[in-house]
């Protein structure tokens, strides 16, 4: 199963300047675990100490905020896209 994780420029710097990473897993959390295994520096900027979503990023699954779909437990399917966007914007 192939999921694409899209990173903003600031986080792409922690992943070899790659904005789009291929990942695998059954949930958003699994896909991120896969990405973090390859780029450990991303870990603290995607998950907090309790393993929950890091407070200054918002995760979208195919353009929808994952908090409306179970958070990191949101199931993913082949071809899905997970988009990571800094929270500090707008208003």
């Amino acid at each position, binding site marked *: 199963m192939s999921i694409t994780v899209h990173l903003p420029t*600031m986080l792409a710097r922690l992943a070899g300047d790659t904005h789009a990473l291929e990942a695998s897993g059954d949930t958003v959390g699994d896909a991120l675990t896969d990405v973090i295994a390859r780029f450990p520096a991303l870990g603290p900027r995607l998950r907090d100490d309790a393993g929950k979503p890091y407070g200054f990023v918002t995760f979208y699954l195919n353009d929808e905020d994952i908090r409306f779909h179970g958070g990191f437990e949101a199931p993913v399917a082949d071809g899905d896209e997970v988009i990571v966007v*800094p929270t*500090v*914007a707008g*208003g």
Partner: protein
Amino acid sequence: MTISVSPEAAATTTALRALPLLCRNCGAARDAGPAAICEQCLGPLEAVYDPARALPARDAIAARPTSLWRYREWLPLDGEPVHSPDTGWTPLLEAPRLARRLGIARAWVKNDTVSHPSLSFKDRVVAVAINAAAAFGIHTIGCASTGNLANAVAAQAARAGLEAWVFIPHDLESGKVAGTAIFAPRLVRVRGTYDDVNRLCAQAADRFGWGIVNVNLRAYYGEGSKTMAFEIAEQLGWRLPSAVIAPMAGGSLVTKLRKGFGEFLGAGLVDGALPRIFGAQASGCAPIARLVERGDDQIVPEIPRTIARSIAIGNPPDGRFAARIIRDTGGWAAHVSDDEIVAGIHALAEDCGIFSETAGGTTVAAALALSRQGRLHADDELVLCITGHGLKTLEALGDISAAAPVIEPRLREVAALAAAVGS
């Protein structure tokens, strides 16, 4: 992404310099630049002011032109602004009938419905952001907007001769769309809520390097909101009210009111206690008010369902900070139904002669709700921040002209009407 610079814009950079930045979360410092997010922790950046800078006294400020730039020492730029020199200094009107309705000693309306140039408080933040853009030599600005910011960006960019990309939800009120399109920006209507638009703009700023005022210019932009607090203090005769209520969308205005009042206290321009700060939201989109009620520290995002489109942000970026300030100052937050919002618009119009958009109706209705809850006191002096003009949201009022009789141009028809009402 590299920011592109026009020769004309670059020529303006010599006289204007933006202040350096500091992360509000981790304290990391960085140079001035079109960045709102800390490279270390992704927390929010804020402008850093030189604590040793010379600050003006009351009389020096009072002698300056009546615009928000009279408070330039508390705005994040060094040098003379090159754009939007005449924004700010809106009226502060005492509202005795509204005070009676609220059961408090005195009330005032800070009337940003007549803000120049686009009839909302967003003119303040854009005036600062567009000058920050000039300091950086950015020739394309933009925004994600629920309407008022779109109006302000489009108008001020037009006057400055800058290109503007303006992103709005596709189904905004017609007055807000027309009030943007008339200035001929690159107006883009996005199928989705404001939160969808905002996410798209965050990605666009990352990709294209535009100066999106509420994304990568946000550290400078937000400071413009403080001028509402400064003006309230000065217009009250250099003193602070006991309470202030403001509508909440992203939550930034509440945080900047607190910061502005605090800065004037720190400068010795006013004394006494900080006002209790109250927040107003629509029940159909009230993530910050509900956070205040719960008392925890996590925003629960909402999908907006309210006529108050200008404050319909389901994932408010400053929600946590706003909720904390509301609680720390001894204030509270209320959320009100769409019917109450419309009633609030009418109450403000009939009590004060001010025609507000839905956010103002929300603010008045929330103040009434807080009064009923006993959170306003009989000796309170309350300022209501009314942030946008009612002509922008006519849809909310329905067919308001239906109650007006239609007559032939004959005096006897007027006499009949007068007799019917006992005049």
